[in-house]
């Protein structure tokens, strides 16, 4: 029941308000077990499958409704945040009506926190979509395995078209948030951080080149230095020296 445990974990870790909006995986699994163990010509495979499909569709409706409502909220919030930034820049910004460095910074900090939280919630929603899709796929697979029918493939094709799975809009909003954060908040503190990062990287480079030089060589002689053994060489290697650093 690996997925079942993982799903439980996801549900526990998610926002409290979302907890009952996830797939009822355990119940569906029990139903599948029931169907496969109690099949008889009395009610037939057809009806059991119809019932199973019915429950699955209920779940899908649940996902759709929840997802679209959240999406609507996100659209509204996104716009409000953008407007909030403009408002802050217009009032307390350098060219605003009441330019004030301190207030500007504070308001911007607030807005920044809001954007980051907003971004996080949207990512959570995309995760929600993925988790439930995966769950559906798995329960369908179980059903097919137990009953020998071929329900999964066509059913999952339809699921792919469902609103809750089509997360394009939310992803777009996520990327817009990221852009906003980069544009508006890139200047101030980032420079210092980038400087520190660059220093660290040059130090790492030097250490690595030293390590290269002092590697145990074939021409080891009486005067050769012993190989340099850096304890954190893995860490230093992982600094990704080839990654492009924006030169500001």
């Amino acid at each position, binding site marked *: 029941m690996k997925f079942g445990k993982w799903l439980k974990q996801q549900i526990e870790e998610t926002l409290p308000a979302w907890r009952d909006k996830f797939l009822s995986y355990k119940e569906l699994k029990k139903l599948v077990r029931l169907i496969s163990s109690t099949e008889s010509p009395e009610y037939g495979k057809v009806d059991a499958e119809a019932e199973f499909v019915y429950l699955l569709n209920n779940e899908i409706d649940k996902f759709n409704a929840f997802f679209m409502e959240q999406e609507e909220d996100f659209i509204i919030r996104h716009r409000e945040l953008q407007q909030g930034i403009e408002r802050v820049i217009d009032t307390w910004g350098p060219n605003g009506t009441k330019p004030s460095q301190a207030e500007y910074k504070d308001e911007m900090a607030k807005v920044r926190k809001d954007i980051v939280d907003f971004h996080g919630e949207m990512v959570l929603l*995309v995760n929600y979509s993925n988790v439930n899709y995966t769950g559906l796929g798995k329960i369908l697979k179980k059903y097919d395995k137990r009953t020998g029918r071929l329900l999964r493939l066509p059913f999952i094709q339809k699921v792919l078209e469902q609103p809750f799975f089509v997360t394009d809009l939310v992803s777009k909003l996520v990327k817009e948030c990221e852009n906003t954060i980069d544009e508006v908040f890139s200047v101030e503190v980032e420079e210092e951080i980038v400087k520190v990062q660059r220093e660290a990287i040059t130090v790492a480079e030097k250490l690595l080149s030293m390590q290269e030089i002092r590697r145990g060589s074939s021409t080891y002689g009486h005067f050769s230095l012993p190989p340099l053994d850096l304890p954190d060489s893995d860490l230093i290697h992982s600094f990704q020296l080839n990654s492009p650093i924006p030169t500001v």
Partner: protein
Amino acid sequence: MEARPALSIQRSGASQLSNHVVAGGLSSSLPALSTHLEETCQKFPNTQQAHAERELMTRHLAHATLLPANNGVVGHIFSSSSGFSSDIHYSSALPNEQNSRNSPFISQSPINTAALPLSQSSNSLLPQSTIPSHRNKENSGSWCTDPDFLDFPEWADQLITGDDALTSNWNELLVDNDMNLEPKTAYQVAKPCTTVPAQTQQLPSPSVESHSVVIPSSSANNAPAKPRMRWTPELHEAFVEAVNQLGGSERATPKGVLKLMKVEGLTIYHVKSHLQKYRTARYRPEPSEGSSEKKLTSMEEISSLDLKAGMGITEALRLQMEVQKRLHEQLEIQRNLQLRIEEQGRYLQMMFEKQKSGLDKLKGSSSNPENPPAPSDATNESPTKIELESSQRGNGNSGTGTVNAKSMLERSPQEVCGEHTTPETVDLEKAETHVSESSSQQPSKRPRLEE
């Protein structure tokens, strides 16, 4: 009410079942099933189906003995075809009745809610009868046929005229009922439209059909459409425009906004619920501006801490953002992978069918070697490289034309596809052991992909 006879039919059908049902297994799974039912019940408190289920559950809970209770719940789940169709009959017949008789609908529900400890806020919606019944009504016919947009403007106007009297309580109704009511009833009625033994056809296509609006056609009772509306930023922009033209979020009325927006397919319900959300979203930021001075001092403290400690708020926020970004990227990758897996599954299925038809043709001529060339031609048309390689492999092995090959191919798309959507690689390893040799090459491709 119609619900009772239908239930009795279900019960009688189910009593035959009970002999076949494994009592032990059933009783253990019953609580789970009943909780599941309860969950679904809770979500759709105002539909007749939910009432029927709730009645089932009250009886289930009330009965001391297990067997009759088994009958009640089992009868619902594994109803005989006669019980099933009667189920459908009353659910489709019901919406037609609701037009004329709203009160019985309400009177029944308080009884049920008293019986069950449902802690739904939507219970408070019960006194306001007209809207839920309206929604049930129109959903009855809506999903059967394609949306017909021409019918829409007539009763939308009817709606709008009768609208202004409704209170803001009604908005709450909308918000809760929006998601709860209509999908359930919509699905209920979708079933009579398709054939009863239909399996894979009974899919949530109605809700897919139109993201915006579905119009009731056949059994239209001049009721408002209440399907789910999928908002977009552009639509929202138009909404805000209209609201601002009308003097702001507090002063704007849904009717006015709807008229200004002039968006086809938009109902006043959508506008109402959206307006309420909009108001709530705007209301909170405004009070905070008044108290911004207080927050100033606390912000100053924090920013000074910022300088003292190496990792302040901004740094923490930055890290949080980074983590969220990465997570989002991973999710996108996972999604794309899932899409491609399904694509491949579909492709393999098609291949298999082609091959099967080829095999059937060749049974007359009895020449086996002809099989491999046909599939390999088709593989050249495959969209992605990976699909090409793995389907070639899959078809190469199944080209032996035995029954085993057929079943392997049949299972492989499902197993491979199913397994690879899990985030944990341990399941991938399981897939490699479960999947037959013809497709055993495929899983090894996946980890490489993911890296």
